[in-house]
C-alpha cells in the first residue's frame, strides 16, 4: 500500500559522501519521531479509530447513550429496511436525499463551470469576480440557512419579488412539498465557489496551443468547448462529481437550520419533503435517543456512499472504453 511517493524522504538515499550516523543518534531519532507523532496518534486512537469501531458495534445494539447497550444482532438493520411502523420515514428520507443529490450536484457543477469559463475569459477584474463568487462558500451553514429562509419568504422574500419582475408568480418555496428539494438544491448551487475555483485551475492547465490549433482549424467557441475544453476537463469534472455526491448524500446543517422554527419542531419541512438522510438520523439519535439505530443508519449510508461512488467509477471506465 505504501506507494514510493509516500515511503521515502530524500535523506533515504545513501550518498557516498555521507558518513553513517552513530547508532545512538539513530536511536534518539526513533524516540523523537515517536514523541512527535504521539499526540496525533493518541487523537487518532481516541477520536477516530475507537469511535469508528464502536459505531459498528453499537449498530448491533439497542442503546440510548446513558444505559448499557443491549445486543440485538441485525434487528436495527432489519427494522430500518423493512419495518415501516417503527421507521415510517426511512425510505422517504432516502428518496429525498437521492432526489436532492440528483438535482444539486449537476446544478452545482454546471453553475461552477459557467462561472469558471466566464472568469477565465476576462482579463480585467477576474480576481474581484472570483472573490465575490466565492463569498457564499465561506459563510456558516447556520447563516446560509437563516439568509435563505428569509429570501424564500413567501410574502416579503426577495426571491419571489425577483420572479414577479419577470411575470412568474411567487411560490411558497419551503412549504410546498414539491418545491422543497429544488429550493434546497438551488442554495447548494449558490455555494458552488469551491468547484468554480477547481474548474478554474483545470482550465489554466489546458495548453493554449491546443485551443489555438482548434481555432485555426475553424472551430467556433461552442465547438471548442464541446470538443476540446470539456474532454480535457473530464478528470476535474469526475473528481468534483464524486466529492459532490458524497457531500450531498450527507447534507444536514442547511436543512436543520432552514426547517427549525417557532412552534414546529424540526421534522424536515412539509410532509417530510426536506427530511434528508442525515436529518432523519439526527432526529432518531437526539430526539428519540435511538443511538444504536442511528449508528446502523450511518453504516447504511456508508454502504450507500460506497455503492454510488463505485457506480460512478464504473460509468467513467465504460465511457472511456
Amino acid at each position: 500500500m505504501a506507494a514510493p511517493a509516500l515511503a521515502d524522504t530524500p535523506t533515504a538515499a545513501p550518498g557516498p559522501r555521507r558518513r553513517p550516523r552513530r547508532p545512538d543518534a539513530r536511536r534518539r531519532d526513533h524516540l523523537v519521531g515517536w514523541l512527535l507523532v504521539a499526540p496525533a496518534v493518541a487523537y487518532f486512537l481516541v477520536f477516530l479509530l475507537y469511535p469508528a469501531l464502536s459505531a459498528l458495534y453499537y449498530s448491533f445494539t439497542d442503546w440510548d447513550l446513558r444505559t448499557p447497550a443491549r445486543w440485538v444482532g441485525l434487528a436495527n438493520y432489519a427494522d430500518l429496511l423493512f419495518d415501516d411502523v417503527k421507521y415510517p420515514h426511512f425510505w422517504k428520507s432516502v428518496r429525498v436525499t437521492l432526489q436532492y443529490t440528483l438535482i444539486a450536484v449537476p446544478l452545482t457543477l454546471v453553475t461552477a463551470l459557467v462561472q469558471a469559463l466566464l472568469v477565465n475569459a476576462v482579463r480585467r477584474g477576474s480576481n474581484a469576480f472570483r472573490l465575490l463568487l466565492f463569498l457564499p462558500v465561506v459563510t456558516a451553514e447556520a447563516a446560509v440557512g437563516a439568509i435563505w429562509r428569509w429570501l424564500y419568504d413567501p410574502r416579503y422574500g426577495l426571491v419571489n419579488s425577483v420572479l414577479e419582475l419577470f411575470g412568474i408568480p411567487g411560490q411558497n418555496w419551503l412549504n410546498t412539498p414539491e418545491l422543497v428539494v429544488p429550493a434546497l438544491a438551488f442554495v447548494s448551487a449558490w455555494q458552488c465557489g469551491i468547484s468554480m475555483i477547481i474548474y478554474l485551475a483545470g482550465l489554466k492547465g489546458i495548453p493554449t496551443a491546443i485551443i489555438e490549433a482548434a481555432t485555426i482549424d475553424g472551430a467556433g467557441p461552442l465547438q471548442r468547448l464541446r470538443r476540446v475544453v470539456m474532454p480535457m476537463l473530464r478528470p476535474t469534472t469526475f473528481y468534483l462529481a464524486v466529492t459532490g455526491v458524497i457531500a450531498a448524500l450527507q447534507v444536514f446543517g442547511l436543512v436543520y437550520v432552514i426547517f427549525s422554527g417557532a412552534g414546529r419542531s424540526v421534522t424536515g419541512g412539509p410532509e417530510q419533503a426536506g427530511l434528508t438522510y442525515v436529518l432523519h438520523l439526527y432526529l432518531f439519535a437526539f430526539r428519540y435517543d435511538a443511538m444504536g439505530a442511528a449508528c446502523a443508519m450511518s453504516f447504511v449510508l456508508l454502504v450507500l456512499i460506497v455503492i454510488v461512488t463505485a457506480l460512478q467509477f464504473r460509468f467513467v471506465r465504460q465511457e472511456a472504453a
Partner: protein
Amino acid sequence: MRRASIYLALVLLVAVSVVPFLWMVATSLKHGQDIYTKVPSLLPLDRRTGAWAATLENYAYVLQVGGLGRAFLNSAWVCLVLVPAKLLVDALAAYAFARIRFPGRDTLFVVLLGGMMVPAVTLLIPRLHVTQALGMFDSGWGLILPNVASVLDIFLLRQFFLSIPAELEEAALIDGAGRMQIFWRVVLPLSTPVLSVVTITSFLFHWNDLVWPLVVLNDPDLYTLPLALQQLVASPDGGRAYYVMAGATLAVLPVIGVLLVFQRRILQGIAFTGLKS
C-alpha cells in the same frame, strides 16, 4: 460586443452571489416594520416615506437578549485555542512523518490516511460518547479536544515539508542542532505558505461549524455563534427577520474580513484542499 456580453453575464452571476448578503445587511439595519414591504428594498428605508431610516437596535437586541454577544466571544475563544493547538499537533506529526526515520512510520501514516475515509456522521455519536466518558460533555474542552488534530492537515503539511530541500536540515544537523531546533528554526519559517492555508481553512471550518457544538453543548452560556444563530432562528423571534439577519451578519462579517485579507492564500489553498477540516 462579445466581451461586453461576458462581462454582463459575470455581473449577473455575481449579483446572485452577493445580493443575498446585501439584503441580509439591509434587513439587519431596518426598523421592524420597515422590512414588510411589497417591493423589498436593498436599503434601510422607511416603509411609508422612503426616507433613510437605519438603526442598530436589532444588533443591540441580539447581542444582549439573544445571547449572540456571548456566543461571539465563545466562538472567538474556541478558535483562538483550537486553531493553534491543532496546527501544532498536526505540524509536529507531519514533520516526523516527513523527515524522521522511526520503525513503523510508513505503516502508521497509511493507517492514519485510512481514517479519512470514514464519513463524519458515522463518527458523530461514538465521538460524543467518548467525549462524555472523558467528562468533557457540555464544556469548552469538549469543543476543543475532539477536534484537535486533522489527518488531512497532517497530510498537506507533510507533503510541503517533503518539498523542502533536505540539505538545509542536514547542514544544521552537522552543525549540532537538535531535531526540535531544526523544526522551529528551519522548517517552520520556510513553510509559511502551507501553514497559513491550514490555519485559515481550519479557522473557517471551526468558526462556522454547527454540528459538533449542536451535539456536545447543552448550556446556552457556552453556545458558539452558529449554534446561537440557529437557536435564534428556532426561537419565537425566528419570525422576525430583522433580528435573525443581524445575527447572521455578525456570523458572516469576520469571515468576510478573513477572506478579503487572505484571498490569495485561500483561493490557492482551496484548489488542493477543499474547505474541509
